[in-house]
Structures are given as structure tokens and as C-alpha cells.
């Protein structure tokens, strides 16, 4: 461990190890509340009757919506907890995200998400010594198909 480095040996051990799988339920009401919060009026997300008559045949989840975690909690919060436990700085900002949409997600789906820390780096920023963690999450639906991949950056300082 370099002098002044934020990346402890405990943190290094977390890299690449999958954490506990998170189970999400994609519910109609949850989709509706989510798009109402964004202010997206598309009937594909808001109106189950309309959506059921389209090729989607059910209410569609908007990009990035994966439902509500019913087992094991919110992915970023869980990751953050494990990072802090391993010695990472306690203040956190969301650095950004990259989403790859593989198959549609809609009401009634049950998704299993497996988070994994892909990499940890650090550098000096205007926040001081700052740690950057890239977390990858693969989402698989009830049919065993991978539907979404996400890659998030957590900033800790």
C-alpha cells in the first residue's frame, strides 16, 4: 500500500468477487411512479391498457428502471457498505453510469442482479484524495436471459 493511498489490501480483495445477488420485482405501480417522477408521459410506461395492445403486451419499464429490490437491498448502497467496511472513505458521490440494454424489461419481470467490483483507482481531485470504484451489475430475468448490464462509478473521498 503506497503512502497516503486510500486503497487498502481489504479493498483490493473485493475486486472481482461477486456480491450477494439482489432480486428485483418489476411492478406496474412502481413503473408508473417512476415515470411520473421523471415527468415522462409516454403511455407505454403509464397506461397498462395501451401498452398491452402494443408489441410489448405489458407495461414497459423505461431505460434504466429495474424494479424495486425485494431481496438484499439497493445495489449501490450494498456496495458502498462493503467498501466502507473495507476502509474506503465514507463520503460518496455518484460518478455516472453506463447501461447496455440487451432485452426489454416490463411489468411482471423478476430480475436477479449480481454486482461485482470491476476496478478501484484513486487520484487527487478538488475533493482531495479521491477513490473511484467501477461496479458492474448483470441483470438476468426469470427466463434466465441477461437483460441489462450496468457499469457505475462510485466516487469516495
Amino acid at each position, binding site marked *: 500500500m503506497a503512502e497516503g493511498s486510500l486503497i487498502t489490501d481489504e479493498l483490493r480483495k473485493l475486486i472481482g468477487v461477486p456480491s450477494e445477488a439482489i432480486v428485483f420485482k418489476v411492478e406496474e405501480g412502481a413503473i408508473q411512479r417512476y415515470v411520473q417522477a*421523471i415527468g415522462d408521459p409516454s403511455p407505454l410506461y403509464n397506461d397498462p391498457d395501451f401498452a398491452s395492445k402494443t408489441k410489448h403486451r405489458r407495461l414497459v419499464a423505461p*431505460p434504466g428502471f429495474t424494479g424495486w429490490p425485494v431481496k438484499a437491498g439497493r445495489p449501490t448502497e450494498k456496495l458502498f457498505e462493503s467498501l466502507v467496511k473495507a476502509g474506503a472513505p465514507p463520503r460518496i458521490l455518484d460518478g455516472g453510469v453506463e447501461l447496455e*440494454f440487451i432485452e426489454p424489461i416490463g411489468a411482471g419481470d423478476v430480475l436477479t442482479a449480481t454486482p461485482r467490483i470491476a476496478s478501484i483507482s484513486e487520484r487527487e481531485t478538488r*475533493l482531495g484524495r479521491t477513490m473511484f470504484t467501477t461496479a458492474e451489475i448483470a441483470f438476468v430475468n426469470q427466463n434466465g436471459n441477461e437483460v441489462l448490464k450496468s457499469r457505475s462509478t462510485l466516487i469516495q473521498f
Partner: protein
Amino acid sequence: MPKQVCCEDVEVGTEITPLAKIATTRMLVRWAGASGDFNPLHYEDDFAKAMGVGAPIVHGALKRAWLGQLMTDWIGEEGKLKKLSCQYRGMDYPRKMKTIDEPRDGETWWCKGKVTRKYEDDGEHLVECEIWVENGNGDRTTPGSALVVLPTRMGK
């Protein structure tokens, strides 16, 4: 329904139809509930100050969701969003409320974008876009990119 955009309609440099958003404290509360992100950074003054951001800030994921809407509005029913990414570079501060449902005067955010590349791969007509959220001063607080598939006029 607006006219379906097809790959023949776009070139490098084509602008994506901009989308206006007004972040308010009320919207942030709603987003917290809908997304499950209850970090006090987004609703508690003292906590936000202690975190070094001055005042409660707009959730990055809410801005990402706006960019999702920017793209899905633009590509229409026949388009397909394959990738979306963004970086939360700058802080945005929501407007406070004047009445129970009316915000105070203040800035309006614009989600914008333009086509940066157009190509074919495996029979799909792909379009890459540079996208961003800009604040009332025109600063791009949330730059990102998107990859979409557009239909063709021939229906292929």
C-alpha cells in the same frame, strides 16, 4: 404520435429534439420515493453542506432518466436504445417551491444531443449520439452518449 425518425433522416451533426426539464425540491422528493434513493444529500441542507456540495443537489440518476426520455422520445416506437451512459460532472440545484405545486422562478434544464456517427453492423442501422443535460447557464453538468438502432424507410 410524432413521425417516426428513420436512419435516412439523420446525418452526423443532426440535432436530437431537445427536452426541457425543471428540477424542483418536490420532484426530488418524488424521485427519492420512486427510485428508492433516500440519501439525505438530496433533501437535507445541513447534510448537503457537510458533504461539501453546499445545498441539496439533483440526483444523478434522475438526470440519467431525463436523458433516457430524451432518447426514447426521439427514436420513437420503432427505434431501439442499445446503450446509454452519462457522467455526473456538475452539481445541479433544484428550484424551491412557491406553492404546493408551483416552483419558484429559476433555471430550466435542457436535455440535448446530436448525432456523432452512423453505421451499419450485422444488418442493424446504428446511430451514436453525444447527449447531455445543460443547466440554465448552458453548462453541461451531465455529459454522456447513446447508441440507438433506427428503422429504415424500406422497413428493414
